[in-house]
């Protein structure tokens, strides 16, 4: 699924989007507030969904070769997170929905 579809379904605010982010291909969704869990995952082309709004969320996303992260719960992102997302070429989105609703919405569009 293309990232643009996810951005639309989640009504995201784009804190940073690398060149042509709309066409990033997402094959799986991984949601956790524990970075340790994300680092244990073995999926490819993941979209990371987390309510943990820290620079380590961006770093962990990069370590597992993921190209996009969604920060839930209407949380703000810091300038440092945006700079890091730019350095690592990671799409950084914010959504107003809680993590559960974000995942439900993602589940719905994945079925169609």
């Amino acid at each position, binding site marked *: 699924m293309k990232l643009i579809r996810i951005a639309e379904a989640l009504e995201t605010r784009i804190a940073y989007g690398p060149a042509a982010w709309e066409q990033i291909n997402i094959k799986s969704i991984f949601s956790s507030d524990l970075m*340790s869990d994300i680092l244990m995952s073995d999926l490819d082309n993941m979209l990371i969904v987390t309510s*943990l709004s820290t620079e380590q969320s961006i770093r962990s996303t990069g*370590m597992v070769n993921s190209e996009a992260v969604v920060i839930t719960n209407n949380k703000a992102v810091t300038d440092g997170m945006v700079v890091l997302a730019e350095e690592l070429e990671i799409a950084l989105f914010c959504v107003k929905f809680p993590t559960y609703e974000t995942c439900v919405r993602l589940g719905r569009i994945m079925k169609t």
Partner: protein
Amino acid sequence: MTNMGQKGSFQSLPQGCELIGDLKISEVMTRNVLAVPRNTTIREAQSIMKENSITGVPVVDSRVVVGIVSMNDIMNALESGRMDDPVTDWMTFEVQALAEEMPLSFAISAFSKYPFRRFPVVNKRNELAGIITFRNINLALIRELSRQLQEKNNLNEHSVDMSSLELVKEYLLSRYDFENGGKASSEIKKFLKGHGIPSRLIRRVAIASYELEINLVAHSDGGMLGFDINADRVVITSHDHGPGIADVDQALTEGFSTANEWIRSLGFGAGIGLPNIKRVSDEFIIQSTLGLGTMIRAVINIHTKDQHNN
């Protein structure tokens, strides 16, 4: 009248189409498309276009496209002083719509064939599903080009000059310096990527290195993270100044952790760091003395086939 795109109309494909392969229009178009009903006035349409910075808007009747209003139509109505006319008096009726299931190459051909700057996209029920512009196509081409270059690089990975793959580097890390925790791993990841190492292998190195880095800032009194890289393997070593681990076997058990609430609030300290390093490494050695410190050595082989996919 909606005139649906026909396969026969777009047979001559311009250059660039081979790049976009099997992409469909639905994967590239903008889905959140603005449309107006028949009874909208030209003035209202102009206001919608101005507010949304767009130069054209489809006119729909029960989601079926019946026309399209462009800036030109609005200027013509303005010149005649008839801004309160319904859009149906001024819009273009002959709309060339594209079907969302069509290959993207059809949309590229349509832009060459017609003077339009945007095409409405319809679903199987002939309802408006999206809109496609040059911008959508450009973005798709950029991403596809980048993906194909990446694939080419991956194919050439093992033909890269491995003799230049040599690095010995050490990083000092301080207790609770979460701001810098991860910088070393990012640098090493970049270095390996620059040498064409397969991405699955880089991921294993990055995970081992990052977990060790986080361990140093979260659990130790500070220490050193070292990398010794050559064409055969990556050796990562971590030495710290204490406090040491009381029971190493327990520390290697998934779920065991001595992390405090603050470390947990940062997303770490779940007690799976050390087992995770062991999981991704080909060799893993840990030695620890309470009161003195901990030494960990993790080796990831480059030369052998990537056997740690799971």
